[in-house]
C-alpha cells in the first residue's frame, strides 16, 4: 500500500514537471491525469484503514545518513484518504475551471506537485523528508496563490503567507531539533525510541502548535489564511482550505500523539481555549466579511478551531487515562476534519463557479443565482447546510460528536479542566450558531433575492466537470452525514494507535444509529431523522394539497405594499452583518459606525461608514512589521558612513576584543 501511494505522489510530482515543460498547455488533460493518483492514494489509505499491513520504506534520498523514510500507518492512511478524496474532486473540478484560467502556465505546473507534496507530508517518516515535503507544499501553494500576481492584494497575501509559512517551518525545525537531540538521527523511529523530558515535550508541543497551527490557521497565526485562500484560483482554494489545513492537523497529531511521550494534563486547557477562541474569532470575521471566498476562508479558521478543541479534549482525556473518552474526542476531531474537507471544498468550488460565471466575489455584486445556476445553487445549499451543522448532514454529525465528548468531561479529575471544558463548549456552541448566521448571509445574499449586478443577472450555469465535482462532494457530505458509521468505523485503528481506545463498531448498532458510548448516554440516528423529516414534509405537503388548494398565482412581491424595483434596496453584505457587527464587533473588531445625516431640506445623500479593525493585525502584526522597518531604517545608516567611520568600527572591534582577552587572561 505504501509503495502504491508513494508511486502516486511521485506520479503527481512528475506530472508537475511535465506541466512545467508544456508551459500551461494541455491543462485539461493534466488535471484529468491528476485524478487517478489521488484516487489510488486514497484507495491505498482506505486499504490500510481496513486492515492492510503498515508499510515502511527507506529511500536513499534526503538526509544522507538516514535516507528518506516513508511509512503508511493508520494515521497517515486516514489523512491520505482525505487528501485523495479532496484532491480527486478538486482535480475533476479543475478540468472545467482551468479552462477559464487567464494564464494557465502559472497554475497547472504547480498544481499536481502541490497534491503530491501533501501526500509525501503524511507519508514521511523522518524529520527531514517531512519538512522538505512540508515546505514544498507551502512553496507550491504560494506559487498557486500568486497566480493572479498583477493585483497588489494578491502579492501582499502571498508575501504574508510565505513569511508565516517560513516562521511555521522554523518552529517545526526547532521542534525536530529538540526531538532528535544532538545525535543527528532524525528518523521518526529513532525519535519514538528516545525519551523526552516533560519540559522538552511541552516545548516541542508548543513549537509544533506554532508550526502546524500557523499552517492550519490557528489564532493568532491565522491572518494570512483569509488573504491567501481567497485570492488563489478556486480549485486551489478548495485544496488549501479543505485539505492543506488537514495536513497541518496531521502534523500536530503526528508529533504530539506519536513522537513524544503523552503530555501532562495542564497543556490541554491551553489547546482547548486556543481552539475555541480561534473558532469564535474566525466565525465572527466570517460574519462581517463581504467577499464569498473570504467568508469561506474565515469559516475554515472556525472549523480548524473546532478540530483543535476536540484534539485538546482528546489530549486531556488521554492524560487522565480515559481512553474511551479520548477516542471519542479524537474521533470527533478526525471526523470533523473529514467533513470539513468535504463541505469546504464543495463551498470553495461553488464560490469558484460563481466567480467564473459572474466574475464577482463580493456579495454585493451577486444575488438571484438560484435561478441562473440552479444546479450549483442546489449543491451549494447542501454545502451551507452541512457547514452550518444542520441535521442530517455531516457537519452536524461531527459537531454532535464534539459535544458528546464535552459531556464526558465530568470524568476528568482536574477541577480546572472540568470548568474550562464546558466553557469552551459554550464558545463552540456560539461558533456553531454564528456559522449558521454567516452561511445564511452567504447563501441568502449570493444565491437568493434579486441580482445586484448585471453580471449576476446574466450568469450561466457552469460546465459539467465542475458540477460533477461539486455533486460528488455534496454526495459525500450527505453520505457521511446520513451514515457516519462508514467513516467512524474506519477511524478505529487511528484512535487505537493514538490514544489506545476506539469507539464501539458503529455499523453494528441497530438502525445504523450513532452510539458513541452507550445508548443511554446519547444517540443520534441521522438516517431516521432524515426519513422522519422527509416523511413529515411530504405528508404535510400531501395533506395540505389534499385538504386545501393547489392554486398558485405569481404576482409582484408584496413588500408591505411598497415594492421597490431597484435591487439595491435589498439587504446587502454590510447591512446583513450590521446586527451582529453591532453586538459582537464592538469588542472583537473595534467597530465604529459613522452616520452623516443631512439636515431636513438638504438634498445631499446621507452617508454611513463602518470603520472596522482587525485588532490582531493592528496590535500584533503591524507592530512587528513596523519594528523591523524601524530597525532596518536605523541600521541602514551604516550603509552611508565614511571610510573613516568604518575604520573606527574595525578599531572598536579590535580594541574591545583585546580588552575582553586581557580581562579573560
Amino acid at each position, binding site marked *: 500500500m505504501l509503495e502504491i501511494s508513494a508511486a502516486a505522489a511521485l506520479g503527481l510530482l512528475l506530472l508537475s514537471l511535465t506541466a512545467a515543460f508544456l508551459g500551461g498547455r494541455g491543462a485539461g488533460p493534466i488535471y484529468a491525469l491528476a485524478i487517478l493518483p489521488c484516487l489510488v492514494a486514497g484507495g491505498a489509505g482506505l486499504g490500510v484503514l481496513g486492515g492492510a499491513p503498515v508499510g515502511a520504506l527507506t529511500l536513499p534520498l534526503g538526509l544522507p545518513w538516514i535516507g528518506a523514510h516513508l511509512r503508511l500507518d493508520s494515521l497517515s492512511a486516514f489523512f491520505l484518504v482525505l487528501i485523495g478524496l479532496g484532491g480527486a474532486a478538486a482535480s475533476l473540478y479543475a478540468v472545467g475551471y482551468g479552462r477559464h484560467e487567464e494564464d494557465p502556465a502559472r497554475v497547472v505546473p504547480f498544481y499536481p506537485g502541490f497534491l503530491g507534496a501533501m501526500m509525501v507530508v503524511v507519508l514521511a517518516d523522518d524529520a527531514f523528508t517531512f519538512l522538505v515535503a512540508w515546505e514544498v507544499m507551502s512553496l507550491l501553494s504560494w506559487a498557486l496563490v500568486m497566480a493572479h500576481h498583477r493585483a497588489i492584494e494578491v502579492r501582499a497575501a502571498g508575501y504574508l503567507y510565505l513569511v508565516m509559512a517560513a516562521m511555521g517551518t522554523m518552529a517545526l525545525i526547532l521542534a525536530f531539533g529538540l526531538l532528535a537531540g544532538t545525535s543527528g538521527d532524525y528518523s521518526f523511529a529513532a525519535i519514538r525510541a528516545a525519551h523526552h523530558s516533560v519540559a522538552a515535550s511541552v516545548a516541542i508541543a508548543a513549537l509544533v502548535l506554532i508550526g502546524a497551527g500557523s499552517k492550519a490557521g490557528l489564532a493568532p497565526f491565522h491572518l494570512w489564511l483569509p488573504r491567501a485562500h481567497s485570492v488563489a484560483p478556486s480549485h486551489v482554494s478548495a485544496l488549501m482550505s479543505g485539505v492543506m489545513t488537514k495536513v497541518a492537523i496531521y502534523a500536530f497529531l503526528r508529533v504530539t500523539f506519536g513522537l513524544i511521550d503523552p503530555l501532562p494534563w495542564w497543556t490541554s486547557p491551553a489547546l482547548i481555549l486556543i481552539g475555541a477562541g480561534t473558532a469564535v474569532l474566525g466565525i465572527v470575521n466570517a460574519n462581517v466579511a463581504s467577499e464569498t471566498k473570504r467568508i469561506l476562508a474565515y469559516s475554515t479558521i472556525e472549523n480548524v478551531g473546532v478540530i483543535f478543541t476536540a484534539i485538546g479534549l482528546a489530549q486531556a482525556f488521554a492524560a487522565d487515562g480515559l481512553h474511551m473518552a479520548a477516542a471519542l474526542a479524537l474521533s470527533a476531531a478526525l471526523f470533523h476534519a473529514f467533513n470539513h474537507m468535504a463541505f469546504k471544498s464543495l463551498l470553495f468550488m461553488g464560490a469558484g463557479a460563481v466567480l467564473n460565471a459572474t466574475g464577482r466575489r463580493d456579495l454585493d455584486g451577486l444575488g*438571484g443565482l438560484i*435561478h441562473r445556476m440552479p444546479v450549483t445553487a442546489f449543491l451549494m*445549499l447542501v454545502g451551507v447546510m452541512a457547514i452550518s*451543522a*444542520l441535521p442530517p448532514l455531516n457537519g*452536524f454529525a461531527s459537531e*454532535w460528536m464534539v*459535544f*458528546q465528548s464535552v*459531556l464526558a468531561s465530568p470524568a476528568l479529575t482536574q*477541577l480546572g479542566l*472540568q*470548568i474550562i471544558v*464546558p*466553557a469552551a*463548549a459554550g464558545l463552540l*456552541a*456560539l461558533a*456553531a*450558531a454564528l456559522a*449558521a*448566521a454567516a452561511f*445564511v448571509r452567504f447563501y*441568502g445574499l449570493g444565491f*437568493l*433575492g434579486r441580482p445586484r449586478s448585471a453580471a449576476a443577472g446574466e450568469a450561466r450555469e457552469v460546465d459539467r466537470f465542475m458540477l460533477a465535482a461539486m455533486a460528488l462532494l455534496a454526495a459525500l457530505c450527505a453520505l457521511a452525514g446520513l451514515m457516519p458509521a462508514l467513516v467512524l468505523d474506519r477511524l478505529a485503528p487511528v484512535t487505537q494507535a493514538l490514544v489506545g481506545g476506539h469507539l464501539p463498531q458503529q455499523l453494528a448498532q441497530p*438502525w445504523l444509529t450513532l452510539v458513541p458510548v452507550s*445508548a*443511554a448516554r*446519547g*444517540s*443520534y440516528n441521522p438516517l*431516521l*431523522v432524515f426519513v*422522519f*423529516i422527509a416523511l*413529515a414534509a411530504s405528508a*404535510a*405537503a400531501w395533506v*395540505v394539497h389534499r*385538504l*386545501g*388548494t393547489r*392554486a*398558485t*398565482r*405569481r*404576482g*409582484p*412581491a*408584496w*413588500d*408591505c405594499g411598497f*415594492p421597490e424595483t431597484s*435591487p439595491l*434596496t*435589498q*439587504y446587502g453584505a454590510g447591512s446583513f452583518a450590521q*446586527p451582529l457587527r453591532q*453586538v459582537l464587533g464592538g469588542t472583537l473588531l473595534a467597530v465604529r459606525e459613522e452616520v452623516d445625516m443631512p439636515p431636513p431640506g438638504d438634498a445631499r445623500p446621507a452617508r454611513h461608514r463602518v470603520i472596522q479593525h482587525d485588532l490582531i493585525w493592528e496590535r500584533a502584526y503591524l507592530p512587528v512589521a513596523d519594528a523591523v522597518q524601524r530597525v532596518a531604517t536605523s541600521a541602514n545608516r551604516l550603509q552611508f558612513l565614511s571610510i573613516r567611520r568604518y575604520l573606527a568600527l574595525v578599531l572598536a572591534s579590535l580594541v574591545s576584543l583585546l580588552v575582553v582577552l586581557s580581562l579573560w587572561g
Partner: protein
Amino acid sequence: MGMIEGFGIQGLQMLLVVALAPGLTGLVRRIKARLMRRRGASILQPYRDIARLMRKEVVLAENASWLFRAAPYLIFAATWVAAALVPTFATGLQFSWTADLIALVALLGSARFFLALAALDVGTGFGGLGASREMMFASMAEPAMLLTVFVIALVAGSTQLSTVVQAFSGPTVGLRVSLGMAAIALIIVAIAENGRIPVDNPSTHLELTMVHEAMVLEYSGRHLAMIELAAALKLLLYVSLIACLFAPWGIAREGDGPAALAFGALAYVGKLAVGGSALAAFEISVAKMRIFRVPSFLGFALMLGLLGTLLLFVSRTL
C-alpha cells in the same frame, strides 16, 4: 413494551402535538386578551385561521424560487420532528433514541435556517431585515440553549431526553442551583425563540419592530399556514420541554399501563395550560425592548447557562 404499542404511542404523540399546538397559541392569545380586558378570540381561532389559509390561493412573488416554496414544508417538518422528540405524557417513546437534546436544538436551527433563507429569497428589504435580526438573536439564543442542555446532560449523565426525564423525575436529582439557572436560561431562550414580548411581538405588523413577521411577510395561503403551524408547534415544544424537564411529574414511565398514560396525558394538558397562562401573564406585564437590548437579554441567558455548568462542577467537587 411491544413494537406495535410503541409505534402507537409514538404516532399518538406526534399527532397530539400537532393537534394541541394551535390550541396553545389560541389559549395564550385568549388569556392575554382577557388580562387586557378584551374579550379576545376563541381558543379555537388559530385552527380556523390555519384551515382558512390552507384553502386560500398562494400568491408567489415573481422571482420566488423553489426554495421559497419548499421551505414552509421543511420548516414545519423539522419543527414537528423536534416536537415529537419531547416526551409529553410518556417517556420511552419508540423513536426517542433517534435524536437527543443536541439534535433537537439543531433541528430547530434547521427550521430557522430555512426560514431565514426563505425570507431572503424574494429580495425585499423586510426579508433581509428580519433574517439578519433573527440570525443575530439565534446566535445568542442557540448557545444559551446548548449550555442549558449541557447543564441538564451533565446532571443526568445523558443527552437522551427520555433518560433525562426519567432521571429528573427520580429522587436522586433534588434541588440544584445549576438547574434553576438552566431553567431561567431556557425560559429566556424560549421567549426569544418564539418571538414573544419583550423580544418580538407576534401580533405586530408595524414593520420596524418585527422580526419573525418580517421574514414571513411574502408568504400567503397554504405556505403561511404551514409556517403558522410550525410557529405554534415551536411554542408548544418549548413549553413541553420546560415542563418535562423541570416539572416531570405525572409523565408515564416506560411500560406503564393505560391508566398511567391517561394520567400523563391529563397532566400534560394541565402543564400546557399553566405554561400558556404564565406566558400570557408575563407578556402583558413587560414592554417590548429595543432591538439592540435583546442581545444583552439573551447574553444574560448565556451567562446563566455558563454559570450553571461552572456551579455544577464546583458544587459537586465540594
